[in-house]
């Protein structure tokens, strides 16, 4: 065969799936978060592979439904969602653009990519005034992926997307 429509379908499916926003962090897409791991054509199905952020992330079912709806709206039928655990999701997969978006939305992004930021006590700058004079109020916040902080310079409380 000289050409097939498959690459086009796969690319269209990727674009549709990649644009799905995260239900709990709607300023980010599932592609930017690293939840979307792949889109392949398997046995006449468009197979979308996703991975959970946390084991108990309650958003996974909603994300799977949102992907199916997005593909349907893009005119793509015969879809299936595959959940994989390995390699385990890490905040290292957040793109730089995703980190910038978090900060613009008042959420301090996780530590630098590739760093061993879990418990290394590097300062978490305030997403509003960029001061390093911040302190952790609570390890666990409104969602599994966030902790609660406050800035002692501008006195604003803020969420921090935890290193993982």
């Amino acid at each position, binding site marked *: 065969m000289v050409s097939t429509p498959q690459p086009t379908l796969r690319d269209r499916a990727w674009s549709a799936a990649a644009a799905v926003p995260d239900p709990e962090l709607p300023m980010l897409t599932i592609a930017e978060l690293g939840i979307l791991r792949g889109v392949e054509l398997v046995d006449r199905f468009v197979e979308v592979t996703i991975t*959970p952020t*946390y*084991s*108990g*992330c*309650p958003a996974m079912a909603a994300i799977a439904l949102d992907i199916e709806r997005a593909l349907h709206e893009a005119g793509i039928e015969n879809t299936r969602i595959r959940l994989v*655990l*390995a*390699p*385990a*999701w*890490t905040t290292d997969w957040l793109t730089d653009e995703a980190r910038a978006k978090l900060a613009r939305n008042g959420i301090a992004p996780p530590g630098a990519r590739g760093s061993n930021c*879990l*418990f290394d006590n590097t300062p978490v700058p305030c997403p509003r005034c960029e001061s390093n004079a911040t302190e952790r*109020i*609570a*390890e*666990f*916040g*409104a969602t*599994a992926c966030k902790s*609660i902080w406050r800035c002692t310079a501008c006195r604003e409380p803020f969420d921090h997307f*935890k290193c*993982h």
Partner: protein
Amino acid sequence: MATTSIAVVDDRLFAAVLARADDALILGHRLSEWCGHAPMLEEDLALANIALDLIGQARLLYEYAATIENAGHTEDDYAYRRDPHQFRNILLVEQPNGDFAHTIIRQYLYSAFAHAFWQAMTSSADAALAAIAAKSVPESAYHLRHAAEWTIRLGDGTEESHRRAQDALDALFPYTGEMFAIPETETDLIVGGILADPATIRPAWTASLDRILAEAGLAKPQSTWMQSGGRRGRHSEHLGHLLAEMQILPRSYPGAIW
């Protein structure tokens, strides 16, 4: 759809996976009992978040158990349609919440073990278990830090908080032996590199306890007598009450969805 209990196969790997799933589910359920009742809003969120992680880990393990068993059972069947004697969790995790100190000390004793256990399990010869372990390591690291910080705060706090933390430690310490005991059915799995050898986990657990309890000003109980029975399905009466509450809805309304 039957309301009756299910029977499960007798298989060593299946039983070992089910036991770890039961640990996570029962402790996760216990912590969820604090939802709306914790001493402060931040702790309400924290305990609910940790419960969510543990129930998530339990679901992954039950799903894997279902593929091993290959009997058409689902994660819900294991959680909702087994009787107390079919659960294989260690007795520590079914102990009642008690006061906040009991909950925190129970959580610390378990988390210090679980973090070391999952770290060791990332190199399991079983790829599915290694993948679940890799998910669980960072989660259990946060659980451990949370519980350790509270253990120090309570132990090194007021006279009242110290007394309650020490009481909790004295009461719960005899339940820690089960974490390191090796059921006869698991020796082959350890030799085969599928399950981590508890003997290799104990040093990390002991080191954590020595450091945190010293900082908390709490005395490590010297008693060497340990409770046992959970891994054989012999439970305290508390598990029956817990399951009655956890299972009543799916058993009363079989197949109900929402």
